């Protein structure tokens, strides 16, 4: 491959095999001599390193700004409550109470305060772990328990590992803010699904998102023999490239359960990546790289 590429592995439905594909694809590229980075953007439930098993060398804490009011100088005018569109500041008996979990860190209250007595403090939202393995750099976010808002952590994570030839983003399930943040600015997307009613329904939602973001994409059908042909039919009617069909394997399910999917997967499905890799190749940006 010439140039660099950022691939995002996504799906609407959870548990379709995103992480399995992300780690095995990373290993496949690494085996061909590429410098690969795997970014685990499923910060609510980061699982990729359970399979990659890189040794975590660095852990960085990620913060987001939230307001604090200097109460001694606050006049209780209520301007901050008025401008906050997230109900993150409420006035109780003319005293502002900040609800950090509601805050989107927009800074609106700070600039709105006529007395200039609102300032920002850093709130911890999670950590980013970085590890190194054979030709693979891993970076994964870990959202702090009880913290509702994941996108700022995902955004911070995506600034990691830019020097790699291939950046593989393991996205969270779903179609809302965390998934969108993970998908942004990728060169291409691989949507992993199952040939079942749930799989198809959620695939259509994911297709809607990648189309809206303008990201070229292809589809991988996992456990391709468990359901029916509806996903294959959908792909052909929508002209979506079908990049791989991976049949169900109890042996793979068992090795996944133990956390050692990488070797077994390549042994059982040696050809699974051929079409995926040639699809990805089309979207590599020219420039320095392998």
């Amino acid at each position, binding site marked *: 491959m010439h140039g660099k590429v950022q691939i995002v592995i996504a799906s*609407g*439905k*959870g*548990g*379709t095999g995103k*992480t399995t594909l992300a780690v095995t694809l990373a290993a496949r590229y690494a085996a061909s001599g590429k410098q690969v980075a795997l970014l685990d953007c*499923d910060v*609510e*439930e980061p*699982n990729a390193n*359970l*399979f990659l098993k890189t040794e975590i060398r660095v852990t960085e804490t990620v913060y987001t700004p939230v307001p604090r009011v200097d109460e001694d100088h606050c006049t209780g005018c209520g301007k901050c409550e008025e*401008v906050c*569109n*997230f109900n993150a500041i409420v006035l109780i008996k003319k005293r502002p109470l900040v609800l950090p979990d509601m805050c*989107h*860190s*927009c*800074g*609106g209250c700070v*600039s*709105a305060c006529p007395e200039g007595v609102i300032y920002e403090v850093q709130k911890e939202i999670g950590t980013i772990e970085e590890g190194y393995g054979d030709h693979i750099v891993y970076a994964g976010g870990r*959202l702090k*328990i*009880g*913290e*509702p*808002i*994941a996108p700022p952590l995902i955004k911070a994570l995506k600034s990691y590992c830019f020097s790699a030839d291939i950046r593989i983003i393991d996205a*969270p*399930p*779903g*179609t*809302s*803010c*965390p*998934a*969108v943040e993970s998908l942004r600015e990728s060169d291409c997307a691989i949507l992993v699904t199952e040939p*079942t*009613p*749930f799989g198809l*329904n*959620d695939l259509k*939602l994911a297709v*809607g*998102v990648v189309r*809206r*973001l303008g990201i070229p994409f292809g589809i991988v059908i996992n456990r391709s023999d*468990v*359901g*029916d042909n509806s996903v294959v039919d959908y792909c052909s009617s929508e002209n979506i490239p079908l990049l791989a069909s991976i049949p169900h394997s109890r042996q793979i*399910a*068992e090795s*996944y*359960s*133990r*956390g050692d999917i990488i070797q077994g997967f390549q042994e059982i499905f040696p050809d699974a990546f051929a079409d995926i890799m040639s699809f990805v190749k089309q979207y590599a940006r020219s420039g320095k790289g392998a």
Partner: protein
Amino acid sequence: MTVKELVVISGKGGTGKTSIVASLAALARKSVLADCDVDAADLHLLLTPEILRETEFIGGLVAETKLDICTQCGKCAEVCRFGAILGNYAIDPLACEGCGVCVRSCSQGAIRMKDRVSGRWFISDTRFGPMVHAQLGIAEGNSGKLVSLIRSEARRIAEEREYSLIISDGSPGIGCPVIASIAGATAVLVVTEPTVSGIHDLERVAELTGHFKIKTLVCINKADINPENTKIIKQIALERKFIVVAEIPYDNIFTRAQMQALSVIEAGDGEAVSNIRTLWEAVKHEIM
């Protein structure tokens, strides 16, 4: 009558939440169903609801620039923290959080906030009882607010029509929609699986339910895939005082039921089905 609310979550996706919820609905006979997985709702595929009422969901606000008034001074781009101001000073609605900071920064009054239609929500009838569900728009946010709305509607219906139980299908993860779906519930049922990722995610969900002090029940699905890991899950449950209410073996009846738009309970019998029946008895015992 007090209304009890059971919320089914999992941490990891694809462990079988929705299939379990439909099966509990079938066994309960009289409950209100709430699909709180608004990001990727699937419960309707098993319960084939007849929609009685459909309502737009206004998730928040979004900025809009009148480009003919805009003098391109660039102040909005300077104050926006979400990178939502595009090169021509139009707004990228996918990046806009709806904070309104740009509106106040604009000296020309060229930017205004408008309602953001983020999806639709429905009140329906199903063969097992009323159902409240939703469809979040493509790439829309504020799913937590929509989840809260669905739960409060489900509660209203339960109180009005004298139902004693609400069964909610939650979303994977531990973030905004999950927090919105479990806060204040009677109990949470975590559907997990004996895999390294299932265990890892269960531990994070456990911390979350501990954080909110919610009674937690555990169902181990595909328990025979890895008996060693099933033991580990039971140990975790014991340490955290969670009750393991069922172990269900791997069975393709889950997929077969889905293909027929049925709950597992309606699709046949066998060990998986009888263990789900045991699960329901145990859940009833714990929460009713």
